[in-house]
C-alpha cells in the first residue's frame, strides 16, 4: 500500500494536465478599458472580438476545440496591464493575446508578451513603440502617422484644397495623427494656418470655434473621438463655419452622427471600415454585429473583430505553438472585416485606408486610398 500511494499520486500528477478542462479549449487573451473614460471603446472592441470567437465556434472551433476569449479590464492604466498580461500567460495559459486597449496599456503589455513568446495583436492602439517590442507583436490597426499621411493626401489630391487648420485631441492619438499630417503636408503644398489642441474630456469648443472662424480655412483637420467630434462639428456648423471637416477613425461611430445631427452631413473621415464594401467578410461582420448586439458597428468594433479574426485564422493554420502562430501571422494574408491584411517585417499591417463620408445620416464610401507605397508603415 505504501508503495502504491506515491505512485498513484505521481500518476494523478501526470494525468492532471491531460484531464484539466483547459485542454478542451483554446484560449485567446483579451484586454480593453471596460471601465473609465474609454469604456465606450472598450465595449465595442470586446463585442467585436466576442463576435469573431462566436462565429469561429459556430463553425466548429479549432480542430474540434472551442475557443474561449479571456477578457480583462485594463482600466486604461499601463501599470495594471503588466500583471494582467502575466496573468494571461501564467494563469490562463492563453495561446495568443489581442489588445482592444489604448496605447498606454498596449505598450506596457507588449514587452511582457514578447519575453514570454506569446503572439500579441493590437487592434487599434496607435503608438509606434508597440511593435518595436519584438517579433511576436503585431498591429492590425493603422499607425497614427500613416493615417495622418492619408489625411493630407485626401485634402490635397482628392479634395484639391490647401488651407488647413488643425484642431487635435490632446493625447498620443491626436499627436501622432498631427505629426503624420504635417510630415507630408509640405510635399502636397498644404498650408497649415493654425494648430490647436483640446483635451479628451472637452465638449465645449466655443473659443476654438471662434478662432477657427477667424482663420477662415478651406479644411479643418480635426483628430479626435466621436464624443469630442460630435459636439465640435455641431458647434462649428452652428457658428457658420462651412469649411470641409476631415475626421479619422475616432469619428467612426454612429454615435458621432447622432450627436452632431445634421451638422455631420458631409464630414469626411479616414478609417478602416468600408460600410459600402461588398467583401463577404465585411458584410458578414456588419450584419451579424448589428443582429447580435442590436447596435450599429463602429471602427473599434471592426478593429477588435479583425484582430481576433487574424488570431483565430493563425491558430487554425498553426495550432497552439506560439512560434508557429507567430510565423503564420507573419507569412499570411487575412481576410477580415477591415479588408485583406498582411504584415511587414516590424509586424505593422499593410492595408488600404478607407475614406468615408457622412451622407443621409450614414457613413458611405467616398474613396479608397490604396497607394501602399505611400502608406507604408516603418519597417523598424
Amino acid at each position: 500500500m505504501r508503495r502504491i500511494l506515491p505512485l498513484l499520486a505521481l500518476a494523478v500528477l501526470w494525468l492532471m494536465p491531460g484531464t484539466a478542462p483547459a485542454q478542451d479549449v483554446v484560449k485567446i487573451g483579451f484586454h480593453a478599458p471596460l471601465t473609465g473614460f474609454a469604456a465606450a471603446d472598450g465595449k465595442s472592441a470586446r463585442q467585436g472580438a466576442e463576435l469573431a470567437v462566436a462565429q469561429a465556434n459556430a463553425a466548429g472551433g479549432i480542430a474540434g476545440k472551442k475557443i474561449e476569449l479571456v477578457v480583462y479590464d485594463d482600466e486604461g492604466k499601463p501599470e495594471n496591464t503588466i500583471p494582467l498580461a502575466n496573468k494571461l500567460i501564467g494563469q490562463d495559459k492563453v495561446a495568443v493575446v489581442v489588445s482592444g486597449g489604448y496605447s498606454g496599456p498596449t505598450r506596457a503589455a507588449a514587452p511582457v508578451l514578447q519575453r514570454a513568446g506569446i503572439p500579441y495583436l493590437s487592434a487599434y492602439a496607435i503608438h509606434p513603440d508597440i511593435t518595436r517590442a519584438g517579433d511576436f507583436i503585431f498591429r492590425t490597426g493603422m499607425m497614427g502617422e500613416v493615417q495622418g499621411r492619408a489625411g493630407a493626401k485626401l485634402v490635397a489630391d482628392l479634395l484639391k484644397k490647401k488651407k488647413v487648420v488643425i484642431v487635435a485631441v490632446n493625447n498620443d492619438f491626436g499627436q501622432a495623427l498631427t505629426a503624420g499630417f504635417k510630415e507630408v503636408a509640405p510635399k502636397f503644398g498644404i498650408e497649415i494656418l493654425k494648430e490647436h489642441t483640446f483635451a479628451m474630456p472637452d465638449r465645449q469648443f466655443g473659443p476654438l470655434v471662434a478662432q477657427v472662424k477667424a482663420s477662415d480655412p478651406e479644411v479643418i483637420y480635426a483628430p479626435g473621438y466621436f464624443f469630442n467630434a460630435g459636439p465640435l462639428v455641431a458647434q462649428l456648423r452652428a457658428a457658420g463655419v462651412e469649411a470641409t471637416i476631415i475626421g479619422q477613425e475616432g469619428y467612426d461611430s454612429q454615435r458621432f452622427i447622432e450627436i452632431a445631427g445634421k451638422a455631420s452631413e458631409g464630414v469626411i473621415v479616414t478609417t478602416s471600415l468600408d460600410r459600402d464594401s461588398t467583401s463577404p467578410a465585411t458584410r458578414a461582420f456588419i450584419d451579424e454585429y448589428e443582429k447580435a448586439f442590436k447596435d450599429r458597428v463602429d471602427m473599434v468594433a471592426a478593429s477588435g473583430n479583425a484582430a481576433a479574426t487574424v488570431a483565430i485564422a493563425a491558430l487554425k493554420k498553426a495550432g497552439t505553438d506560439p512560434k508557429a502562430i507567430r510565423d503564420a501571422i507573419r507569412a499570411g494574408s487575412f481576410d477580415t472585416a477591415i479588408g485583406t491584411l498582411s504584415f511587414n517585417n516590424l509586424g505593422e499591417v499593410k492595408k488600404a485606408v478607407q475614406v468615408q463620408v457622412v451622407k443621409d445620416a450614414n457613413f458611405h464610401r467616398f474613396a479608397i486610398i490604396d497607394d501602399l507605397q505611400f502608406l507604408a508603415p516603418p519597417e523598424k
Partner: protein
Amino acid sequence: MIGAYEITLVAVVSINLMLALGLNLITGFCGQVSLGHAAFFGTGAYAAALVAGGLPLPAVLLVAGLFACALGLLVGVASLRVREDFLAITTMGVGFVFVGVVRKQGFLGAEMGLTDIPDHGLGDLGFVGLCLALVALMALLTWHIKRSWMGFGFAAVADDERTARTLGINAAAYKLAAFVIGTFLAGVAGAVYAYFTRFIIPGAFGFTVSISILTMVIVGGVGSIWGVVVAAVLLTLLPEFSRVINDYKLLLYGALIVLTMRFAPGGLAGVVAAVKARVRPGGGP
C-alpha cells in the same frame, strides 16, 4: 507558487505602498490634506527616466527623490500661506498643472511619453526584492519619525496649529519637513514605476492617482502606519480579485469607500481601536 503574475502584482502594490506611506506623513502625521500627490510621483518618474541611462540604480532613485522633494518644498512653502481646504485645492491644482505642463513639453516626450528606460538589471525577483526593501525602509522611517520628537511636532501641528505655535513649536518648519520627506518618498516610488513599466506617459500621473492614494491613507486610518499599509494592499488588490466581475469592480471600490467612511470614519485603525476599547471596557488594566 510564485509566477511572473504574482511578482509584477507585488511591484504594483509596492509602488502604491510607497506613495501611501509618503502621503501618510504629510496628511496623516502632519494634517496637511494633499490632493496632488501624483505630481511628486510623476516628477520622480520623469526625473528617473531622464537620468536612468547614465546613472546606476541607487543614484537614479536618489535623484528622483530629490527632484520630487524640490517640488515638494515649493508646495510646502505654499502650504504656509494657504490652509485646510484651500491647501487641499491648491495641491489639486499642482497636480493638474504638473500634467498640463508635462504633456506639452517636447523634451519630456509630450503625449507620447518617454520610452527606452533601461532595464534595472536585477532580474524579476531582484526587482521585487528591491521594491519590498524600499517599502520596509520607508515604513521603518515613518515609524521612527512618528515616535520621535518630530512626530510629536507633526501631531501638534495636525491637531491645532495655533496652539502648537503658542507652545513654541515651529509649525512652518514641521510642515516643510513633512512635505519634503513625504514627497521624497513619492519621487522614489516614481523611479521604481519608471523601471517597472520602462516607459512613462503623462496620463499615468493624473488626478485619479492622487485621489486613490489619499483614499488609501484615509481608509487605513489617518496617521496609522499599519492601517495605511493594509488599506493600500487591499485597495490595490481589490480590483485584481474582482476581475471576474469586471463590470462591477469600480462600483464595488466606490461602495467600499463610502461604507468605510460612513460606518468607520476612523478607517481600519479606528475600527481596531474601537474593538480594543470594547474588549477592555473602562480603559482596562
